[in-house]
């Protein structure tokens, strides 16, 4: 079919173009927008009626004109060409190579919107991933096929943490094909450069695919970027049987791009101006993580988002938390006290924890120990708060012990080196070691025989 070209743009509002007298355009179709200066941008069809088409341009609309903009409908949805050769490559937010390498000769071309995984086809995530970070492995473990976001805020070291997790992640006792897909949305050059260098340094780049939409790239492109990354991940996981870790950063910029389109379309806004369909839209991204029965590969997602004003109830972290299987929350307070990684373990949560740990996976005492650490740390923090109001002397002897425990816990257990890769056994032993600071009779969440066995062990 010959591709028709239209010169009938009637309105340009923000990222939106209204094209008239169009025949045969389809909803969701890919569009080429030719600028008056000859350069070509991409867009897609947001709404189509008998002769009018609303096009969203992924390119900045600066320089477009009503009279001389050419629109071509491509007759297909936006696709990503994939083959094994995408590994080790860097693409822009729309899937074009930007590392100077050759174009990809595709095995397949995949619609970037994907299809939902049939819930009946899913397999429950249950393989523990050792990230080498105690605060994650010990207390909020990551499980293969999980989507576990990092809720961060401006100025916190989420990038370093994500890079560390990507570098160190391994499943216990197995050597399998492992790859990392990295989707950058609206982050700065420095941040992106940090990731690329990190991956280069550790040769991880050989098994990585990077999609880069930086802060100065067109904002609208960001709507496609995570879909590109996830499509690549699905190909690697379910066609090439790899275990894929997807890092998406920063989801906040993605949501802001969505809001921009929604505002330009004059849609009725939901909370804080974000569109009412933000939940559904985010779900179509996050739900592309998981395992499939009978498939060897898997997709694990770590989306990173920065909470505006450190506010967890802001629509972006809020809706994310409703979709993902837990969250890792970073704390400014810990960061200020130079604790790296500054993971606020109490409000952090891994919903798949119980299925991923225990005998045969990590160790039989893992679950009880982590509950004990949680409650002891919570009690210690409460005691410290009390001490702030009433003075240390108002604390009971036990409370003092708990307060001391919480300090040591932050200092030794949570805090660790950026390049320190702790084994799960080390993490658990450290936990038992710290529990020695507390009176035995207060250790109610661990069993007596576990105390005998593991606390003794850590004494040797």
């Amino acid at each position: 079919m010959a591709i028709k070209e239209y010169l009938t743009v009637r309105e340009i509002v923000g990222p939106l173009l209204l094209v008239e007298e169009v025949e045969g355009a389809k909803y969701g179709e890919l569009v080429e927008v030719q600028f008056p200066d000859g350069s070509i941008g991409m867009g897609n069809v947001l709404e189509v009626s008998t002769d009018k088409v609303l096009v969203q341009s992924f390119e900045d609309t600066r320089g477009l004109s009503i009279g001389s903009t050419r629109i071509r409908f491509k007759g297909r949805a936006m696709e990503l060409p994939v083959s094994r050769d995408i590994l080790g490559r860097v693409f822009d937010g729309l899937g074009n190579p930007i590392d100077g390498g050759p174009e990809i000769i595709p095995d397949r071309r995949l619609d970037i919107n994907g299809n939902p995984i049939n819930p009946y086809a899913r397999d429950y995530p249950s393989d523990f991933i050792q990230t080498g970070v105690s605060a994650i492995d010990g207390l909020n473990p990551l499980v293969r096929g999980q989507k576990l976001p990092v809720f961060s805020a401006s100025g916190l070291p989420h990038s370093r943490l994500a890079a560390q997790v990507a570098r160190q992640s391994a499943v216990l006792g197995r050597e399998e094909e492992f790859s990392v897909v990295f989707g950058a949305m609206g982050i700065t050059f420095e941040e992106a450069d940090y990731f690329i260098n990190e991956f280069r340094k550790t040769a991880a780049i050989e098994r990585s695919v990077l999609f880069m939409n930086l802060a100065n790239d067109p904002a609208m492109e960001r709507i496609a970027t995570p879909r590109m990354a996830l499509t690549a991940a699905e190909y690697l996981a379910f066609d090439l049987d790899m275990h894929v870790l997807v890092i998406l950063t920063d989801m906040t910029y993605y949501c802001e791009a969505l809001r921009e389109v929604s505002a330009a379309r004059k849609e009725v806004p939901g909370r804080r101006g974000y569109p009412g369909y933000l939940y559904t839209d985010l779900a179509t991204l996050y739900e592309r993580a998981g395992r499939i029965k009978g498939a060897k590969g898997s997709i694990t997602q770590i989306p990173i988002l920065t909470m505006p004003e450190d506010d967890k109830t802001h629509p972006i972290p809020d809706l994310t938390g409703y979709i993902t299987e837990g969250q890792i929350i970073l704390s400014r307070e810990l960061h200020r006290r130079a604790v790296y990684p500054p993971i606020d373990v109490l409000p952090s949560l891994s919903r798949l924890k119980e299925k991923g740990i225990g005998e045969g996976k990590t160790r039989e005492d893992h679950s009880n120990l982590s509950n004990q650490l949680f409650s002891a740390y919570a009690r210690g923090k409460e005691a410290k708060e009390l001490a702030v109001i009433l003075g240390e002397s108002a604390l009971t002897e036990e409370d003092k012990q708990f307060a001391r425990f919480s300090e040591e816990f932050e200092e030794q257990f949570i805090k660790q080196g950026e390049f320190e890769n702790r084994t799960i056994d080390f993490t658990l032993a450290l936990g038992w070691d710290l529990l020695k600071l507390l009176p035995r009779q207060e250790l109610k969440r661990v069993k007596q025989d576990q105390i005998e066995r593991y606390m003794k062990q850590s004494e040797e």
Partner: protein
Amino acid sequence: MVAEQSGEIVKVAGPLVIARGLPDPRMYDLVRVGPSRLMGEIIELRGENASVQVYEETGGLGPGDPVFPTGGALSVELGPGLIESVYDGVQRPLDLIRESEGNFITRGVEMPGLDRAREWEFVPVAAEGDQVEEGDILGTVQETPVVEHRLMVPPGLGGRVESISGGTHRVTDTVAVISTERGDVEVGMFQSWPVRRARPYRDKRSPRRQLVTGQRVIDTLFPLAMGGTACIPGPFGSGKTVVQHAIAKWANADIILFIGCGERGNEMTDVLLEFPELIDPYSGEPLTKRTVLIANTSNMPVAAREASVYTGVTIAEYYRDMGYNVALQADSTSRWAEALREISGRLEEMPGEEGYPAYLGTRLAAFYERAGYATCLGSDKRTGSITVVGSVSPPGGDLSEPVTQATLRVVKVFWGLEDRLAFRRHFPAINWLISYSQYLEEIEKRWSEDINDDFKQMRSEAMSVLQREAELEEIVRLIGVEALSPGERLVMETAKSVREDFLQQNAFDEIDAYSSLRKQYLLLKLVMTFGLEARKALEEGADILEIIRHPLRERIASAKYVREDDLEELEALTGEVVRAMKQVAEGVPGREAVVPDSAAKKERERVEKIFETY
């Protein structure tokens, strides 16, 4: 020709398609959209334009594509084979779709809700020549080892049974012929019913019987009645889904209908993988043998999410009509409301609060009203019920938002989840101060018959101790625990025991996951007896610290792990507590009772009031 009768698309905007030229379109008619015949439903008519919400991804549709009428409304197939099925929001079987389409859900799949090939053994109950009316049972099919499927005369039908044939049938077979005033009518193994219309019943009654869920905080503090309605609002991470799953697992209903409405895919997988393994405590069979699942996860099309709750409740009504007690759980109704909002936005309707359509409250109320305890159609006047438990996911945990508020206006039971409790790893994280149940009075009456006279009493005392604790906590926060009188400290300790040893329940522990009502009673009695006896000991001059640190308390703490078969252990332990507290009191002879100062005296009176009724 089909083509002549079809309409054509004039506009596509997300899940909404506008079509023109449909022959005599009616509101809520089902249509097939585009060349791949995607399912859709007419939700607005303007002139010759019909707005259609499409239940599948609309990418690739465009103006000029055909829209085919089906002449009927969105309906579900009701017959043997529903139990153990896993459906999407419009009753397509996901297991069969996977077999034919692979691991990802593709578009335009047409598949009947009931397996056409499967054979069932039909045992007639009615005989030739019998006079039957609507709702009468014609015969039965053993659908699963637990569920006897009762084939009923469809609503609106009645007359003489001309013929009825037992034996092996497929769902499409005719099993009986009924001669009515309007001629002979063939009755098959299944009937279709439009999902948006409630199935008829004879009359409704007030719910009386308790739906026992095995969850202590629910059954004892805020009980739910069969045929009642409840909602569970809570921010993310507060454990809504765990509570919903626990109810689905342990409720004493005959049929469980679980609707995963716009939630996580892995959660549905959890149910799918776990339920076949779990044994129903009432029947001894796997839980799947009484369960119907509807899975419309968050990434599946939004319009089908809107339909999923109706599909679910219609199936529930069908089993209610057979005389069963059905528990229907919708997780989460907020996602359903959001689907409404999204469609409403596309229709460019004037929004109400926070962008939700103005009819949100009406729709929610109409949905919950399909619950109830009813006398069914049929001359035997059997009764059945539907209990609806809906979770609500308020943004930011803020209960003042429209969906929570609209829900609270219609439901009778409110279990408010709180993330503060979840952070402390107190599960189920149901806040006892804000939750309520309006069925309490009715249900308490039954307790004195079924369990024990003093159950009601103990429940209200446990509640006042918790209430007292909340007040005292304020004081502790301001001036420290040392400022409390011994009596007050005992209240704090008793409340702590109620919280930790009674209310906290581990859904993942084999024994603790389910407590029978009897066990709940004995456990509460144990905890409250400690409070009462300790109070007495204190009055006789015992040292508060000696009471607090008494070694028996550890055994109270682990009492919840006593097996259902060994419940007499709890009674024995209660006896031990009484003796031990006596000993504590006697262990300090001659010591003068603490002289209460005026504030402590007041407090003491108050606490005594709480305990004096024992």
